[in-house]
């Protein structure tokens, strides 16, 4: 039986009726049309579906949408507007060629957002630890690590 759900996604409030078994990521993609959140493994291994819920990353395949009642969600679409310049972390990914197929990128970006919010000056080891739950099959990770470190420098410079 469908249940009513009200939540905020990227600053916009939505109310929908949703079946309890629908996970948050599918809700974002299918009910709200926000297809920036990608689904890889659907059992909490690959990290592609990572979103921010009340500021903390989680795997949106491991949370049911009904559990997000009243929560504030940030997806990759919330990092920058289509017309606006890229978010510094997105810009760093672009500069460092930190994506090839792009499938892992939304999850990587939001993971780096959380990391830099908490630790504005991470070491390379700390970046690697933070992204250890996000699988990338293209880049070999080095450009992603470089991008995170570049973004940290940019954000510290106050250009955000």
């Amino acid at each position, binding site marked *: 039986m469908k249940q009513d759900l009200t939540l905020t996604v990227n600053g916009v409030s939505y109310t929908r009726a949703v079946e309890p078994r629908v996970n948050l990521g599918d809700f974002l993609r299918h009910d709200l049309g926000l297809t920036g959140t990608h689904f890889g493994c*659907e*059992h*909490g291994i690959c990290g592609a579906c*990572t979103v921010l819920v009340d500021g*903390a990353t989680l795997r949106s*395949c*491991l949370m*049911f949408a009904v559990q997000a009642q009243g929560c504030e969600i940030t997806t990759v679409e919330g990092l920058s507007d289509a017309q606006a310049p890229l978010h510094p972390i997105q810009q760093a990914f672009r500069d460092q060629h930190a994506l090839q197929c792009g499938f892992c990128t939304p999850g990587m970006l939001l993971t780096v957002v959380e990391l830099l919010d908490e630790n504005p000056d991470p070491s390379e080891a700390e970046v690697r630890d933070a992204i250890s*739950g*996000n699988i990338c099959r293209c880049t070999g990770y080095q450009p992603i690590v470089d991008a995170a470190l570049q973004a940290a420098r940019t954000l510290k410079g106050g250009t955000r």
Partner: protein
Amino acid sequence: MKAPPFDYHRPQSLPEALELLRGADARVLAGGQSLVPMLNFRLLAPTALVDINALDELRGITIEGGRLSFGAMARQREIERHAGLAEIAPIFAQAVREIGHRQTRNRGTIGGSLCHLDPSAELPMLCVLHDATLTIQSAGGSRRVAVRDFIQGAMSPGLDAGEMLTRIEMEAWPQGHAFAFLEHARRAGDYAMSSAACLLTFDAQGAITRAAICVGGLGDRPARLTHAEQSLLGARPDEQLFAQVAEEVERLPAEGSIHASAPFKRQIARTLVRRALTSACATMVTA
């Protein structure tokens, strides 16, 4: 890879939650980091989920006079970053950092880990290491049980129908105790092939006065090395003695997996026990 249909309940109080668990084929939904994958794989198909994320009664970590008390819903990330816990029982932060990844630690809970009971899980191991006492509640009442009686095997918590784990309590070791937690996995965040944890105290002359050693991931549950603990009493830290007491691992039940045979797991565990004891002593020297 989608969960089967279920009725969803989000009770606002513990009595309401316990009432919902009565009778029906209901599962408790805590952090969901193990339960939801199992639902997605359709390994489970409960008629109802009772989501306990709204229950304030189950939150938080309190420290009173050396006694640690975790609400069942205390999240792994909270345990990892808890300032008071870092001071009084620093092994928690060290071990929790090995659990999964930040995204899963943001959700995963101590109670969920204890009720799922993967044999290599870190938090059940720390509970066994500290001889924790668990509070189990149901609509009919409440009982307390030692963690070693609660753990009945892999993925087999000692819970009857309608019961819920609500609180986990243990005595912290004396201020300044030595500690170490080590595990080995092929990749960061994977389930450990084996793990070892230890706590030690010393007298003024540097002899060991109390020891607790636990290994995980070998058999179907965390196991204490009781003979090793005994033989360390009165001894001074000594690499050779540590290697010798670690041999007790050879007598413990071990189950092989596709990633590591039973003898290989034992070999890793033996090495980790020796290294954990050595590394714990090193923390004492610097302290």
